């Protein structure tokens, strides 16, 4: 399997190298939203004496920088690609080979991250200097961040695939995944750090999977949570990864029987 991954990685890097500009533009696009929220929260915080809850302007800066990085590292766009592949019959060649189609997706995802991480880091350093970001990160936070962001990426990927697999029934998953993204917008920690959500919303957010993809690893990286809290939140990540792993397996097994191999 390692040799297969190596070969797929080489081919994907070759293909991606043809679309360098596109990759960079997508990366910049993914940073714009957090930066807009950062600017908005900075304005709000300044109008209220420079502090909202436990966050001052420099904390907001650090949070949204961490969120941008986590967002890049966990981004998964399977639902869109997969719907297209099912609708156009492009999935068929992959199904004919002795390798689960999910592996092609893993490699595409990895390559995108590899090719965008350095330019993204440069942009984020620039933002950190501009907003004078303050990180409260300890070495233990950094140590926990690694498994946490891996769990978050796995969760994003598996939930994306579980949703995408609905395309076997509808071949129009777009509406479902858009609904999913809108929910994530509120509950993942994009619109505000999870700690600043009003009481009931915070409880709901922690019961849903979205926050475990973005907000949780971002706060661990920023050092915004205590170590015991970080471990507790990571346990939540593990639970969701397990749930979506089995959900995906189940949906795939049933869904593949529905595949109508349209046009191909």
């Amino acid at each position, binding site marked *: 399997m390692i040799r*297969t991954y190596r*070969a*797929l990685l080489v081919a994907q890097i070759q293909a991606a190298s043809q679309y360098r500009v596109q990759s960079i533009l997508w990366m910049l696009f993914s940073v714009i939203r957090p930066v807009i929220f950062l600017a908005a929260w900075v304005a709000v915080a300044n109008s209220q004496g420079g502090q909202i809850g436990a966050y001052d302007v420099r904390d907001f800066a650090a949070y949204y920088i961490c969120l941008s990085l986590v967002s890049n590292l966990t981004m998964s766009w399977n639902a869109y690609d997969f719907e297209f592949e099912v609708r156009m019959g492009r999935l068929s*060649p992959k*199904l*004919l080979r*002795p390798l689960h189609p999910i592996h092609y997706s893993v490699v595409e995802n990895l390559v995108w991250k590899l090719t965008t991480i350095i330019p993204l880091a440069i942009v984020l350093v620039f933002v950190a200097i501009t907003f004078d970001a303050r990180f409260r990160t300890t070495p233990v936070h950094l140590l926990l961040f690694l498994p946490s962001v891996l769990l978050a990426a796995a969760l994003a990927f598996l939930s994306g695939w579980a949703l995408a697999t609905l395309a076997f029934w509808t071949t129009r998953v777009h509406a479902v995944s858009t609904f999913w993204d809108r929910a994530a917008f509120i509950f993942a920690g994009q619109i505000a750090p999870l700690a600043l959500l009003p009481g009931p919303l915070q409880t709901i957010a922690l019961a849903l999977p979205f926050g475990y993809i973005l907000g949780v690893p971002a706060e661990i990286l920023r050092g915004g949570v205590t170590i015991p809290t970080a471990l507790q939140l990571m346990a939540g990540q593990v639970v969701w990864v397990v749930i979506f792993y089995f959900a995906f397996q189940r949906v795939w097994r049933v869904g*593949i029987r529905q*595949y109508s191999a349209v046009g191909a």
Partner: protein
Amino acid sequence: MTDAVVDVRELRKTFRVTEREEGLAATLRSFVKRHRKDVNAVAGITFRIEPGEVVGFLGPNGAGKTTTLKMLSGLLHPSAGEASVLGYVPWRRENAFLGRMTLLMGNRTQLVWDIPAADSFRVLQEIYRIPEGQFRSTVNELTELLELQELVHKPVRNLSLGERMKVEFAAGLIHSPSVAFLDEPTIGLDISMQVRIRRFVAEYNRRTGATVLLTSHYMDDVVALCKRVIVIHRGRLLYDGPLADLAERMAPYKIITATLHDGAASSTDLDAYGTVVSREEGRVTLRVDRQVAAERTGRLVNDLGSRLADISVEDPPIEEVIDRVFTSEQTTVSA
């Protein structure tokens, strides 16, 4: 009974499709209530294919050919019936099965568009776990047979349709499959490329002993490659037997072509001998019942005497036979 490479029993596939009439009112109604209809793409077919056979799978558009190939290659689950390919149930999609078969579709690409085919071959080598030595010799063989030398190092998107098809063939056969399902492999290709692909399939079958099930709308493909054909129409099997017997079974007539001296054909009334199909300068083509073809030919020779320059008796062209099968409702004939 257990030796067949492909063994299909009462295979069926029913698709449920949504139907609605045209217009805004019908569109609005369809939001509330949808009319669904079951379409029997494959309505219970049974056949066997022995090792090394090259079988033509014929039928008009929508006959169920591609649906059958998709079931046999594991892409589709059937609604009913059974099938085994190389001893496996295809739709279980076990890796051991997928590694020994291929489905090539003339209008589909399986190569990575942006990189040269040679790099895609390397990926396939790892996916199919082909040892380096075997990989090199297969690539060399396919390169020689398909004349790929110049093509494999260009990005696939820069290849012409015919060039791409050749490379697709190589990619589809790189793991030396024992069974190849070829769906319209020459579609859209020019005549010389069609001939090359045909030669290649024949040579591949000869060299490897692979079993081939081939669909094509070009009868030349079928005539060149297949001794046996399976004809399906509206999901049902109409004929399964030697290509040579197809005309005898399905077209109960022969074609007599008489060439006359002095261009006398236009003035000679030959309607008494059979149905005149065409009448060109000096040349008359007649359709005559199979049973009386010999007797009519004898009479023509006698009656026309020295005016006759040449005469031939043949089965109708295979295209005509097939067309006749599809345009008339025939009952199942099995050779």
